[in-house]
C-alpha cells in the first residue's frame, strides 16, 4: 500500500515537471513561458520531495531530522520559486518586453 502512495506522488510530480518543460518549449512568448514554469515547476518539485518524505517517514523512521530538512526544503521552494518568477516578470515588464497578442509571431 505504501509503495502505491509513494509511486503515485512521484509520478504526479514527474508529470508536472514534464508539463512545465513542454510549456517552456512550446509557448510563444516570455510571459506565457513564465506562466507555464512558475506554477508547474513549484508543484512538481514539491510533489517529488513529498513522495521521498513519505518514503523516509516509513522506512527510516529512526532519523526524523532528515524529514524536517525535507519539509523545510519544500517550504522554501514554495516561497522562493514564485518570488523569483515575480521578480523576473517585473524586470521584463519594466525594461519593455511587449506581451504577445493573438496573431503575432513567436518570439
Amino acid at each position, binding site marked *: 500500500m505504501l*509503495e502505491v502512495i*509513494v*509511486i503515485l506522488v*512521484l509520478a504526479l*510530480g*514527474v508529470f508536472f*515537471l*514534464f508539463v*512545465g*518543460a*513542454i510549456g*517552456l*518549449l512550446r509557448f510563444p512568448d*516570455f510571459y506565457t*513561458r*513564465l506562466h507555464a*514554469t512558475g506554477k508547474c*515547476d*513549484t508543484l*512538481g*518539485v514539491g510533489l*517529488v*520531495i513529498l513522495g*521521498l518524505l513519505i*518514503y*523516509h517517514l516509513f*522506512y527510516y523512521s529512526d*532519523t526524523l531530522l*532528515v524529514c524536517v*530538512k*525535507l519539509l*523545510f*526544503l519544500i517550504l*522554501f*521552494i514554495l516561497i*522562493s*520559486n514564485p*518570488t*523569483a*518568477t515575480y*521578480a*523576473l516578470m*517585473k*524586470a*521584463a515588464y*519594466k*525594461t519593455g*518586453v511587449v506581451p504577445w497578442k493573438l496573431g503575432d509571431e513567436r*518570439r
Partner: protein
Amino acid sequence: MIEIELFQKIFLAVGLLIAVTILLCIYRAVVGPGVFNVVVAVNVIGTKTIALLVLIGYYFERPMFFDIALLYAMLNFIGTLIFAKYLERGEVCSR
C-alpha cells in the same frame, strides 16, 4: 529486502525522467531569444536540480546530499533575484 531494491529502481527511473526534462530545458537555455528566456530556463534547471539532488541522496544512501540540496536552493534563489535586479536597473548595487 525486496522493497528497498524496488524503490532503488523507482528512484533511478524518476531521476532519469527528471534528467530528460532538464535536457528539454537546456534547449530553451541555449536557443531562447533574448536574455530573459535564458534566465528563466536556468532558474527552472536549478529548481529541477534540487529534486535530482534529493533523489541522488536516496539512491546512493548518502544523507549529506540533503544539505547540499538546501544550499543549492538558496543559491539558485539568490542568483535569480540578483539577475532580475541587474536586468531591471543596469547595476547590482546602487549607491
